[in-house]
């Protein structure tokens, strides 16, 4: 019963079938990022937590959780910054540094790219609305507000830039 089956390599079956023992160790890396998303989480650190090679970590993590580890970390930081904007009177600069960004500019830009509004606008909007957060355990509440980041931030930027460009001359498109 305790024996864990090795992952199946049957091509074309379920897209990714991973060894549950490996998944449990990958979950540990995800938990560690959750617990300290303001810290730096280079691949070698995460791989050590999961006891897998650096070469396999990022791919395995993405197979398991659907996003690369660095992007997962980004969503957690944005989630935490959002909670601090909503629930505290901390300055936006303090929030940026406390949630793991090294510059206010990067924070503001990334925040806007991911959520669609600036930190200041989000704070104003959230604080204007009435909330009853004590009805749901805070930890679950913040997870419910986690940004759903399905594409890379750079890709999102590209797409939005493309949307705002004037129409292309499509005559060369066959």
């Amino acid at each position: 019963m305790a024996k864990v089956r090795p992952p199946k390599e049957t091509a074309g079956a379920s897209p990714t079938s991973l060894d549950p023992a490996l998944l449990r160790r990958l979950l540990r890396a995800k938990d560690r990022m959750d617990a300290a998303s303001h810290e730096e989480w280079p691949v070698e650190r995460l791989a050590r937590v999961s006891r897998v090679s650096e070469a396999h970590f990022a791919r395995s993590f993405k197979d398991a959780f659907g996003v690369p580890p660095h992007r997962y970390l980004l969503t957690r930081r944005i989630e935490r910054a959002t909670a601090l904007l909503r629930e505290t009177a901390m300055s936006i600069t303090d929030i940026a540094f406390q949630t793991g960004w090294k510059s206010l500019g990067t924070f503001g830009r990334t925040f806007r790219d991911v959520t669609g509004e600036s930190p200041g606008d989000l704070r104003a909007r959230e604080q204007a609305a009435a909330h009853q957060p004590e009805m749901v355990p805070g930890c679950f509440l913040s997870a419910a507000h986690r940004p759903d980041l399905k594409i890379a931030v750079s890709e999102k930027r590209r797409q939005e830039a493309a949307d705002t460009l004037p129409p292309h001359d499509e005559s060369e498109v066959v």
Partner: protein
Amino acid sequence: MSQGVAVVGLYVRDQDEAVQFYVEKLGFRIHTDARNGNYRWLTVQHPEQPSFQLGLFAPAPPTLDDATAQAMRELVAKGAMPPLVLVVDDCRAAFSQMRERGVEFTQDPIDRFGTVDAGFRDPSGNGWKMIQARRDK
């Protein structure tokens, strides 16, 4: 109480490991441990909650087919199962005691909305929040 929820089950990767965890590390008691061939009905109970049993079930045949059982083991190991909440009188004290016993905490105690909560996982990956009961004002 004569009506209500009596048993809620968790999927665990190994029932021996799970019962050891819930009994030795969390202080639950075994309520029922009945075997029938490969099937094992195993429930534990919180010492202060006699009307409720927590089932520790293996995702395995005959209940599930092999492929479904494998998928379920993966989901549990990924922490994808729904949240569980354990209410305690003193979150920090319970945290210290459980950590000493080797419980894997995912979140140290945090003050939040006038109470304190922490997070831990069982060996299979089921995630628990441990929340301090609010004192009556």
